[in-house]
């Protein structure tokens, strides 16, 4: 069987050439003829000078993370004093990564890898910072990927254990939810076309909406923020299903069997209406999400929101609210 060699994509070559030209223009504005070369070297922290160190305080979380794992992203430095970079008495000024260097000292580290640039200007320091920030802003996707790897490898770690390692609990919970998405949606998140804001919106979709979104992506629909936002404002059928609070679970004659977006109950659940405060709150939240924005639903939306807030406050109370509740079930039920 003959295998064809991959043919270079001529469009990609042209695009890359245009990017190089733009980079040259940018470097010229920075007063740089060519991007200064840099080597990766391990340097003693005692030989690093941190400009403005008195104005910077690394967070305890950063120090803890460095103590456990070291500096994962080498700071950028430039020769400050000494004959050359290999001079054992040479000192280096930190042009980017000052907080990491100070954090390493507080963590008791003695040396660290650095990207040593042969020259630097303030403009170069700024552009390095922008590049690093852009890479960092895309780091959330990398973290989702890493978490998915842990899940696939069946590494059992609780959220509390990860927090103890220095992860922020709120952002970790969000990334974990993304890591557990169905394959098609997970792959779309990794593609990087979705902003973090849009990914957070996706977490507000119900399970049926996520399923619908997955089907759309599988059928070739590109995953965009507009698509996710549109799902949040999905239309409901005229004529609401009866709320599944009566034991009969009746529906209006002529209704289709497709469930409304805001109902998440299965047929079995319809026979047992929600009787706990959290389940009633969840039902109301689903109902609120399914309401079309507009004048016709203005009053319903206001009343639903007000009732939800009152119930959420009441759920923190030590007194039972429902006749079905016992004092032991409140607060944590």
């Amino acid at each position, binding site marked *: 069987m003959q295998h064809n060699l991959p043919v270079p994509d001529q469009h990609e070559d042209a695009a890359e050439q245009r990017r190089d030209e733009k980079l040259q223009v940018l470097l010229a504005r920075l007063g740089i003829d060519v991007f200064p070369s840099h080597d990766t070297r391990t340097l003693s922290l005692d030989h690093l000078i941190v400009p403005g160190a008195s*104005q910077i*305080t690394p967070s*305890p979380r950063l120090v803890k993370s460095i103590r456990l794992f070291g500096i994962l992203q080498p700071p950028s430095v430039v020769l400050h004093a000494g004959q050359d970079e290999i001079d054992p008495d040479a000192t280096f000024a930190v042009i980017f990564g000052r907080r990491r260097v100070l954090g390493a000292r507080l963590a008791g580290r003695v040396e660290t890898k650095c990207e040593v640039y042969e020259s630097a200007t303030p403009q170069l320091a700024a552009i390095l910072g922008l590049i690093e920030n852009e890479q960092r802003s895309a780091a959330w996707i990398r973290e989702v990927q890493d978490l998915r790897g842990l899940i696939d490898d069946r590494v059992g770690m609780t959220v509390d254990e990860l927090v103890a390692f220095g992860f922020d609990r709120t952002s970790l919970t969000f990334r974990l939810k993304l890591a557990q998405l169905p394959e098609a949606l997970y792959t779309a998140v990794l593609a990087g076309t979705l902003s973090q804001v849009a990914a957070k919106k996706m977490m507000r979709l119900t399970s049926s909406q996520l399923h619908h979104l997955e089907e759309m992506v599988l059928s070739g629909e590109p995953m965009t923020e507009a698509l996710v936002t549109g799902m949040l404002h999905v239309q409901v059928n005229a004529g609401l299903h009866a709320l599944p609070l009566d034991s009969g679970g009746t529906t209006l004659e002529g209704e289709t069997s497709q469930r409304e977006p805001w109902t998440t109950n299965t047929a079995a659940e319809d026979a047992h209406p929600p009787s706990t405060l959290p389940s009633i709150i969840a039902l109301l939240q689903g109902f609120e999400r399914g309401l079309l924005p507009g004048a016709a639903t203005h*009053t319903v939306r*206001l009343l639903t929101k007000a009732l939800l807030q009152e119930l959420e406050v009441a759920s923190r109370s030590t007194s039972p609210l429902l006749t079905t509740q016992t004092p032991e079930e409140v607060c944590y039920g």
Partner: protein
Amino acid sequence: MDDFPKTTPVPRGCGERTPGGVYIECGLSRGGSPLEAFLVDPPLPPPPGMSGDALANKAQLWVRTSRSDPQDPTTERVVMHPGTEIPIVDILIWIGAQHYPYVSDFIEEVRRFGASRKLNPNLDLTQLTRYSRMILLHPHALNTLWAEQRPPHACLKERAGHTQSVSLTETGFPSDGSDNTEPVLPFVQTGPCLFKCYDLLPVSVATLPPAPDDESPLCLREIGSTLYSYQPTGESAEGLTPGIFAILPITGFALIQYPDGRVNEQAKAKIVRAQTDHEAFALPSYETEK
């Protein structure tokens, strides 16, 4: 030290939290005390010299004192942290009417989302500890016309003399149809009630007004992310004056991040220094996007 009560990061009556800002919080938790435990009813008049002009956007630190004889100023002493010679310092915060026209607006927001107030980073945050309290004042908290007005619909602190709990006939006997023939003392209001402020809200400020023929109207009012109900009586709100209406515990500081993840380093340094100095008494802090 990440597990402590925090507020809910929603848009509030005063808007969204500012990147680079430092906020003092009274966060929410299951198992905590209900908000009523920290409301001051009746509201107290502001300390001398502490009006809106002095306090608006300028929270002030206030050394806590106590008197063994409330009537004798010479018995006043500074209150210290247990087992130390370090005074407890509280913080006086003015809740302006610009963003919270009515004291009920702020109370209901705190009830749902916790309290979060921006501080000047130049304030000496090192003086605040877990023993410190947020003393909150509002320009329209203390009702001076209470004696001329009906009692409130409800007093959530159930203060004696604020609202009657039994309806009486004209003869002073209970109208619940019971056989009790013992005369019940007529209800006498004893002073202003914080919760009367809810009843004094006009119908015109409701987001969702009541039905036109409703004899006992129920209105919904929206402020920031908060929606709450009130029953207007149509009585005059002219008698509302400044007062201390709440004394909240402080659960920590929130440092709001800039887009690049940095926070106000000056404020953070003070907080970190306080955590080192005060150890077990220190207030925790956290960094957040909003």
